[in-house]
């Protein structure tokens, strides 16, 4: 009986999480509907004669992704906390980093799935021409999502065992999301207004740096969040 390695354990945990999420498919469906609703309600919150939809779209996109991502990450530790299942993970002979990596992986898959549906929706509802912007957008999405999920997963772990997880998580995480959401929204706006991607490199570099620093830092920090 050999304890599974870092990657094998991460993979087992990610698979288990995705199995729980997709057990009924409703978690995914709800997340998608939630994103669509957020996109739509944003539209009605603003007077369209005062704010053009094209100007709103990038912000709406990123705020929506932020909140639906937070929900997903909250859930991912919620299922652990409910009947103390996290204890079983902690007793298992897997590196604690692999718990973090597994959960983060599952979250990236889940959040990316939701984005894949809501991106076209926002294009239709806000009348945004995506046609030529696909590839750069995909790059921005990937870079930003990795950063959001790394930080969000770590904070979800920290807050999961407090009786206020669902409130405290955004409070802790959002300040860390600013350096992701702002560059991502700016780069998205640039791309959508037809400027060449090269003009957004400054933003993308921030995203990349954030990813590198925080994926590493959060993986290293995670074990400290769970020891008791």
């Amino acid at each position, binding site marked *: 009986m050999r304890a599974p390695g870092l990657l094998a354990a991460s993979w087992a945990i990610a698979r288990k999480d995705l199995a729980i999420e997709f057990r009924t498919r409703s978690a995914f469906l709800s997340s998608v509907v939630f994103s669509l609703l957020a996109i739509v309600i944003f539209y009605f919150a603003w007077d369209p004669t005062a704010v053009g939809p094209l100007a709103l779209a990038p912000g709406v996109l990123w705020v929506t992704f932020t909140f639906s991502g937070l929900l997903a990450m909250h859930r991912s530790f919620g*299922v652990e906390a409910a009947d103390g299942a996290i*204890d079983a993970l902690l007793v298992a002979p*897997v590196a604690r980093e692999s718990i973090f990596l597994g959960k983060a992986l599952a979250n990236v898959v889940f959040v990316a799935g939701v984005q894949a549906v809501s991106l076209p929706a926002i294009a239709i509802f806000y009348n945004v021409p995506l046609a030529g912007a696909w590839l750069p957008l995909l790059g921005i999405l990937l870079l930003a999502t990795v950063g959001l999920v790394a930080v969000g997963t770590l904070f979800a772990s920290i807050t999961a065992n407090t009786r206020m997880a669902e409130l405290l998580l955004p409070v802790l995480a959002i300040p860390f999301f600013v350096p992701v959401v702002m560059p991502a929204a700016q780069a998205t706006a640039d791309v959508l207004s037809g400027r060449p991607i090269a003009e957004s490199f400054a933003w993308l570099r921030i995203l990349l740096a954030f990813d590198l620093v925080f994926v590493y830092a959060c993986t290293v920090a995670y074990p400290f969040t769970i020891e008791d």
Partner: protein
Amino acid sequence: MTTLVAATGLVRTFGARRAVDDVSLALSAGECLALFGPNGAGKTTVLRILAGLLRPSSGEARIGDVRLPDPAARGRVGLISHRSMLYDALTARENVRFAAALHGVPDAEEATVRALAALRVADRADVAVRSLSRGLQQRVAIARAIVHAPDVLLADEPYTGLDAQGGAALTALLRERRAAGAALVVVTHHLHEGLALASHAAVMRAGRFVRFERAEGLDAGRYATEYQELVA
């Protein structure tokens, strides 16, 4: 005989309360400690420290000769706790198989089936744990805890909610683990039940071990009377 569980000078405080206060113990292969004590004595806290879930405020705990919370130490432990530690959206089978995978059990599928059968829940293995009754959930929780044949089994009031059949299955399983050379710690409020299983018996009170001895040859009735006086 190799020492499988060793604790020296464990202390754990919560705020100002010393939930565990200078506890030391050592168990070798095949030994079973029955841990008694009134509510709030600190039994659960000791178990959680030995499982590597709680860091002692001072003192240290070892599994074999690896100090907790090293993963190599944790992997040899099985824990049955107050809470089921199950994912209630998954089925019993999925829960147990996941635990097996995490412990690197070679034939996870077969080990899962065996564990569930040992607890007599094989026939309800494929419904979501959420829709099982309390006793059935407890059985699944036990199956999850022993699927990797742990060298050290920590059981916190494991008979909770079990009916006669489930209790008998658990007793058989604990004996089997002991015979296979595991060290066991069983917390229970039933002195007779505990003494019948154990090679050692200990009584906790206000965070301390106030009694610790070999159980074989103890007279259960007399022990019970003395226990009453001790914790009164």
